[in-house]
């Protein structure tokens, strides 16, 4: 039990910084931010806690609660993708994760998802996102449009294959 926990922790904490950098890198800040996981007590890890900290580029260390809404969302996504890299489930379903993100962060998260759903590499996964922002869903391979038919009192869906269209 102790070994299984340590294996998971070591693997994930080895990947979290790389993924956070991929999500926070930009032309202005090519290095991106810094993220890490630490154990409150390494003797008996599962009796104590795991601490997660993330520093956006150009900012100093601060407690997670003091980050902004958008910064917390990006940190949470990095953590989820890092955990996924240890136990890769075949798919992700994400419901309006872009609610607190500005246009720049939406573009970075979309780019990361497109890369992970397209590449042939080991950690490829399928993604289903629910979003209200066209700057996010325009990158998808297919759209499922949901509408409500007031007469029948029921949701209806129709699917559109975006593969045939170019992003303008």
């Amino acid at each position, binding site marked *: 039990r102790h070994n*299984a*926990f340590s294996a*998971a922790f070591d693997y994930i904490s080895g990947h979290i910084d790389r993924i956070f950098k991929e999500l926070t890198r930009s032309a202005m800040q090519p290095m991106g931010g810094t993220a890490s996981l630490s154990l*409150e007590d390494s003797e008996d890890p*599962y009796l*104590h*806690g*795991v*601490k*997660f900290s993330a520093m956006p580029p150009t900012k100093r260390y601060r407690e*997670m*609660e003091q*980050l902004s809404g958008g910064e*917390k*969302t990006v*940190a*949470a*996504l990095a*953590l*989820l993708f890092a*955990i*996924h890299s240890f*136990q*890769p*489930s*075949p*798919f*992700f*379903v*994400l*419901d309006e*994760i872009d*609610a*607190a993100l500005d246009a720049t962060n939406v573009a970075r998260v979309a780019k990361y998802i497109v890369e992970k*759903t*397209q590449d042939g590499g080991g950690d490829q996964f*399928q*993604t*289903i*996102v*629910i*979003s*209200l922002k066209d700057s*996010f*869903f325009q990158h*998808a*391979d*297919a*759209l*499922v449009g*949901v*509408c*409500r038919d007031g007469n*029948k*009192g*029921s*949701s209806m*869906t129709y*699917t559109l294959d975006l*593969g045939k269209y170019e992003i303008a």
Partner: protein
Amino acid sequence: GRIVRLEIEDFKSYRGLQQIGPFKAFTAVVGPNGSGKSNLMDAIGFVLGVRTAHLRGSLKELLHSNGTEAAAKRSAVRLVYQPSTGDEIIFSRAILPNSHSSNATFVSQYRIDDRQVSADAYNACLLSFNVLVKARNFLVFQGDIESIAAMGAKELTNLFEQIS
């Protein structure tokens, strides 16, 4: 592997039998407020065995009802999954009344490729495709994303325990 399509029958705001898909590598679900997008995600969570506490309602409340007709008596969601090797598999979970009286309670019934199985066998089969329903780290419900970053140290340890 990946999700190919869904079949939803009288589940939440989806009336009757509806086919949804095909799902590609990256699929976006779009539509106005209150149209039924999160209900679609609840259908995916439901068919994968997520407990109803996370689906905004009890088994009874998941049955389609729209106020003008009688509420549905049963409901089902089928998920067609294509593993990286081998044939398609159909995971399905239904809500059924346990008797025909009007105050019947509702139970879940699990099937794999139309063979009825126990909840544990269903879960074990999902686990073999690396779908860890208990950890739920691959499902982010609406509004949850920010609380994930602010997760306490103890909660994070629990998540790590479930994954290892």
